[in-house]
């Protein structure tokens, strides 16, 4: 990436969407939010911090734009398929496209990515095919086959449980003196898990080359951030662990790139972990099994509609004459066709293979499990499945 972003000095551009100051009961106000805050584009797509602008060529800017649109279109298609009964429960990433694409954009394929379950758009960017992700979320375990194109870890549904593993990969990189870094993300709710704090500590102690990205999207199912954390500035946690940290407007893709480039460069140069708090918003349902109307106000959602990461970036690209309405329409059509093609391939591939459920539990099935498998295959035969 541009050297400008890596060397830039502190920016003071505010991200005003979350309380930054926390009152202690009476005597004094402790400024727990004394972390640097990054934003390149404001909500209208105007540059507010030119020093952090990554300075990407037009075709790269367009590639970024397409990544975000692809993320959104795929998400919308999955939701439609879920509603028609073709897909299982999944967690939509609507509204978090800039956070997602911005964190993977500065990565190399040789870097390791350990995402949360809400990172579908980022996974597509890193080389997971859409049809594979559809298989996975439709309940076919074949969907978890790791793509060869990049160093990917499967997400875990169990909140926060992947974070120490990601840290361990980074420790391995350090032991082997390799050039790679690990990028891992998790939600604000996940930041309450003990293992996440423990992983911060391990990473700091061993100076492991890892970037922790907390996608602070306001809610953990029905629990608002204010009930999740005593200090809602999650970047401030870096301080306690000895990890440099930055807070970034997660709906500003250029801000994300600036922050993550800096964080990745830091980790790669042997200086240890880095924490990025991306302040964003989960626009849609927590998962397709959730009804947010029970616990949150429409006005809140409305406010965030005005901060849409894609519209913001569109305005910016228009102002730079990289994009116009025709091009926007064309790109959307192309991507929609891509998504539909993936859906069609998924439909061909979606064949359950119940006989395979024993095959990946051990390198070689122990005798007692071979017996169980035989019993199971017998059952399938009786049912006429095999």
């Amino acid at each position, binding site marked *: 990436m541009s050297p400008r972003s890596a060397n830039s000095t502190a920016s003071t551009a505010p991200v005003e969407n979350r309380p930054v100051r926390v009152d202690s009961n009476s005597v004094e106000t402790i400024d727990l939010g004394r972390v640097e805050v990054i934003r390149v584009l404001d909500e209208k797509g105007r540059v507010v911090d030119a020093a952090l602008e990554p300075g990407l060529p037009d075709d790269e800017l367009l590639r970024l734009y397409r990544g975000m649109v692809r993320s959104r279109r795929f998400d919308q298609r999955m939701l439609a398929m879920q509603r028609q009964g073709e897909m299982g429960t999944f967690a939509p990433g609507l509204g978090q496209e800039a956070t997602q694409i911005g964190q993977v954009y500065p990565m190399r394929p040789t870097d390791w990515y350990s995402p949360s379950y809400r990172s579908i758009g980022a996974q597509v960017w890193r080389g997971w095919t859409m049809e594979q992700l559809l298989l996975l979320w439709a309940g076919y*375990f074949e969907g978890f086959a790791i793509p060869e194109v990049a160093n990917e870890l499967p997400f875990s549904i169990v909140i926060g449980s992947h974070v120490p593993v990601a840290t361990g990969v980074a420790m391995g990189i350090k032991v082997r003196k390799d050039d790679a870094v690990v990028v891992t993300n998790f939600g604000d709710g996940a930041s309450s898990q003990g293992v996440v704090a423990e992983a911060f500590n391990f990473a700091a102690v061993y100076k492991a080359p890892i970037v922790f990205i907390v996608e602070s999207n306001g809610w953990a*199912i029905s629990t608002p951030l204010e009930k*999740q954390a005593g200090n809602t500035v999650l970047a401030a946690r870096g301080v306690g662990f000895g990890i440099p940290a930055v807070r970034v407007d997660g709906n500003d893709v250029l801000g994300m790139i600036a922050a993550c480039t800096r964080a990745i460069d830091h980790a790669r140069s042997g200086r240890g972990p880095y924490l990025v708090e991306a302040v964003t918003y989960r626009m849609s349902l927590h998962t397709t099994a959730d009804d947010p109307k*029970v*616990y949150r106000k429409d006005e809140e959602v409305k406010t965030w509609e005005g901060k849409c990461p894609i519209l913001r970036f569109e305005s910016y690209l228009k102002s730079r004459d990289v994009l116009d309405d025709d091009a926007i329409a064309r790109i959307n059509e192309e991507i929609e066709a891509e998504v539909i093609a993936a859906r069609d391939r998924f439909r061909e591939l979606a064949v359950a293979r119940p006989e395979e459920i024993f095959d990946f539990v051990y390198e070689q099935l122990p005798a007692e499990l071979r017996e169980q498998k035989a019993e*199971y295959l017998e059952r399938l035969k009786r049912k006429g499945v095999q």
Partner: protein
Amino acid sequence: MSQLTMVEALNLALGESMAADDRVCIMGEDVGVNGGVFRVTKGLLERFGADRVLDTPLAEDSIIGTAVGMAVYGLKPVAEIQFSGFTMQAFDQIEQNMARLRNRSRSRYPISMVMRAPYGGGIRAVEHHSESREAYWAHTPGLKVVIPSGPRNARALLAASIADPDPVVFYEPKAVYRAFREEVSEEPEVMEIGKAQVVRPGADVTLIGYGAMMRPVLEAADDLVEEHGIDVEVIDLLSIKPMDTQTLVESVSKTGRCVVVHEGPRMCGVAAEIIARLNEHAFEYLLAPIKRVTGFDIHFPYFQVEKHYLPDSDSIVVAVKETMQWT
């Protein structure tokens, strides 16, 4: 009298216990405003206030650990773990404190609390939402482990678990949550923990199950009687620990044959314990080796194939017929 689903019956029991005893508090992820992701705690925040209905941060180990602390202080917490797969995150506090603080303090601090969690497969859930790991908790000294099978016993057993002076792991078969309704009495109903129930008397073979498996078990029993003329006695275990050895032994002493069913993995599962007890106490009455129909010793599969993994009435019928072949 009203016809309730299991979710509604559990909600009723919680409300009744909280109204009757102001030491009873509930806590967990999303239990307050949202009423729990399955709506088991719906309306309780409005009725009892935020001091007694605590929405917690997303940290299972601390949900159980702090519930233990509240119990030390004399409250009766009912802690919900959102899915039983996430009781694993709380393993440490369950083992170290919930199960043993009474013993460690020579009964100065009895831990009267309940850990509720929906368990089991069959609802097309993603990874880690379908496990049945009740054997872990049965293996832990100091805990009781209770698993209802329908709305009525769910209500009565939850009331008993909350009243119990010891820590209870209360696993709720989520496949049953809304599967059917049952008559639940107006009056609060409490069942004794540690008693199994003969839900269908029979002479030829004993079928033992619990939780969500009671449905395929009863289906298999119908099928065996109608299609094969085999008279099946069915027992609903209801309490894994303590286990009602007497009822099991009495039944098998009468029938001489037995099949045990559960959806959790086979090795060191609950069936293994039941079979060991029957060997110890009913050996002279056995006419055939006792069989078990269980989940396999593999990870719970993704949901497109879970129906093949889970024991169904067909696999139970086959096992019973095999048992009958011994003469």
